[in-house]
């Protein structure tokens, strides 16, 4: 481990000069990494379509990829609108898929579990009050092994 006193600790959290510069340069020219990756993916897909003889699809993919890339380079504001739309669309798809996959799991798995708990009379939530008892304190189970502290449970 390297341990030395920093020249200026606050720079780790307050680098206002560089953030000012970054803000200005970001406004002037958005990063083109994303569009480049998009173009590369589009070109690959188009090449595959071409290889398998789907010429119309090749043209469609190539035109879309080139249009998006050109938009990013020559009309960044328009590209941002497309980006936002795609982000929202993919979020929507993600949400829908999550519901489609998890909702049946919840109703089938957890409702069945609840039914089993009812049948066996178990209640991990200890919802019943016990007027006869003097105390609800329960003994804490001590951790016996130091190694257990390296586990997530």
């Amino acid at each position, binding site marked *: 481990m390297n341990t030395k006193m920093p020249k200026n600790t606050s720079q780790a959290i307050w680098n206002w000069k560089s953030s000012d510069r970054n803000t200005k340069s970001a406004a002037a020219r958005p990063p083109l990494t994303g569009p480049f990756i998009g173009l590369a993916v589009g070109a690959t897909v188009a090449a595959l379509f071409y290889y398998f003889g789907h010429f119309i699809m090749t043209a469609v993919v190539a035109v879309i990829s080139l249009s998006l890339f050109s938009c990013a380079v020559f009309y960044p504001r328009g590209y941002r609108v497309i980006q936002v739309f795609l982000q929202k669309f993919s979020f929507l798809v993600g949400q829908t898929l999550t519901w489609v996959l998890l909702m049946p799991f919840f109703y089938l798995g957890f*409702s069945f579990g609840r039914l089993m708990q009812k049948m066996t009379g178990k209640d991990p939530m200890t919802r019943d009050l016990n007027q006869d008892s*003097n105390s*609800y304190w329960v003994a*804490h189970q001590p951790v016996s092994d130091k190694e257990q502290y*390296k*586990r997530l449970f």
Partner: protein
Amino acid sequence: MNILGISAYYHDSAATLVRDGKIIAAAQEERFTRKKHDHNFPHNAVRYCLAEGGITGGSIDAVAFYDKPLTKFVRILETYFSVAPYGLQSFMMAIPLWLKIKLWIPLQIEKALKACGIDRIDNIYFPEHHESHAASAFYPSPFAEAAMLTMDGVGEWSTSTLGVGRGNRIEILQELRFPHSLGLLYSAFTYFTGFKVNSGEYKLMGLAPYGKPKYTRQILDNLLDLKEDGSFRLNMEFFGYLNSLRMTNDRFSDLFGGPPRKPESQITEREMDIASSIQAVTEEIVLRMARHAHDRTGLKNLCLSGGVALNCVANGRLLREGPFENIFIQPASGDAGGSLGAALFVWHMLHDQPRNPDGKHDAMMGSYLGPRFSDDEIQDYLDFHQYPYTKLDPDTWAGEIARLVADEKVIGLFQGRMEFGPRALGDRSIIGDARSTKMQSTMNLKIKYRESFRPFAPSCLEERVSDFFELDRPSPYMLIVADVKKERCLIESNPAARDVPFGERINQARSDVPAITHVDYSARIQTVTRETNPKYYDLIKAFEGMTGYGIIINTSFNVRGEPIVCTPEDAYRCFMRTEMDYLVLESFLLDKKEQPQFQDNEDWLATYELD
């Protein structure tokens, strides 16, 4: 040995660096991201702590995460098992987050540290949530041995624990388990009275003195079964937090004569009475728990932590009526303090390292554990932006500022290291004259933009505390409420003054320090010593020299919904957005009248989520 403590993914994420048992740095993530109660992984706080400790690369000896995530996950699954087919909405919100992020905490930690140049972590530890809380209170306390009480919403399964600390060992003896939780009970009422859960609890506490405890019997008879030893079970038929996204349900509403108050709507007498009632019940539970802890351990010292320990009204009662001679309360008692506790737990418990408490001083260093900024940096910033300022001479610094306070000016005070925990203690504070009759409403409405009923707290010279309050000991972390001295109160003897309408009661002058005297003649006190904060002490001392009053108003440097300011830039922004008169940035004094027109590029009143 360097140990990095981390708390994250519930609320108030934070990081702490402990080196050979000494707390080097601690900070909450919200201060850097400017998102109140930020629950995300504390990347910025970790970066700050490592920088403060001069750790620039290589490996770190240990990382301590403040709870056991898998055990918590099992508790959440068991909750769904016990309420299905209800609870789908909550399930759909919680489970994707767990599957995507919360179950992979070691990976998150490695990734975050890698970004800071740390390529190897020797060990990652996971103490239990309430062990972390207990450790955060006992290890920095001045006591060689003490009983420990932790009370919060919920950790893994525990919601409150009772334990004992001796030397460098802590042992949890008993616990109350989810869903029976004092923190969640209080939060249910926070929700019902229209405030934000996990954030607005202190407002409920501030509202309580305006009401009468009319519903106390109703709460005790219907909502919980409270035993003599402070243990209890909640009647879950009235609560919604097991199977819905609401804290309370329709039966709860029926019990209190109507639906929950809508946020930001008019506060009525019902809310005041409800606040007063739940506060009384909470105090009763805390007192009973403390008596039980005393009986069980036979010790004279008590360490308190967990979110409920921030209820300074209950703490004050515990001090006055409880069985313990001495009480230490962790200033960052919420989950942020878990990062500190986890790190200290690893050092003392798992590495068996000794403590050296002296019986008088705690190891929190006044809770000034965050970043500080030098005069050079600040001057550079001010010059770059051409903000006009006056550089104060170190010898006259305190006197100049004290003079402005005495002239009833409102001043943003930014100096020294940022505080760890929810309270501003003089380094990131807005200060004013406690003798002023207009100061409470000026500060609430024109500076903080918050509800007019909210009280302000005083910072008082430690040696003067008994002159102003019914308190005979230090309260360095603003965690104890005590009454203003009877002889200072103006209308105590006039009972009719207590029966005037809510709006008028707020503006009554109740003592010769009206700005800090709450409606029930109490105050949430911070005592200041030269030892922990020399500049702040000198300022109040200079004010005393001018006015005869060694006491000023101290409220956190932020507006409603905003985290306390962290950097000079945050401070300047907050200063310009509000009607503060002056800003002190270390040695620099800025006059609002001299500042250029502020170019605000965001709708900040809409940016900050109201609590």
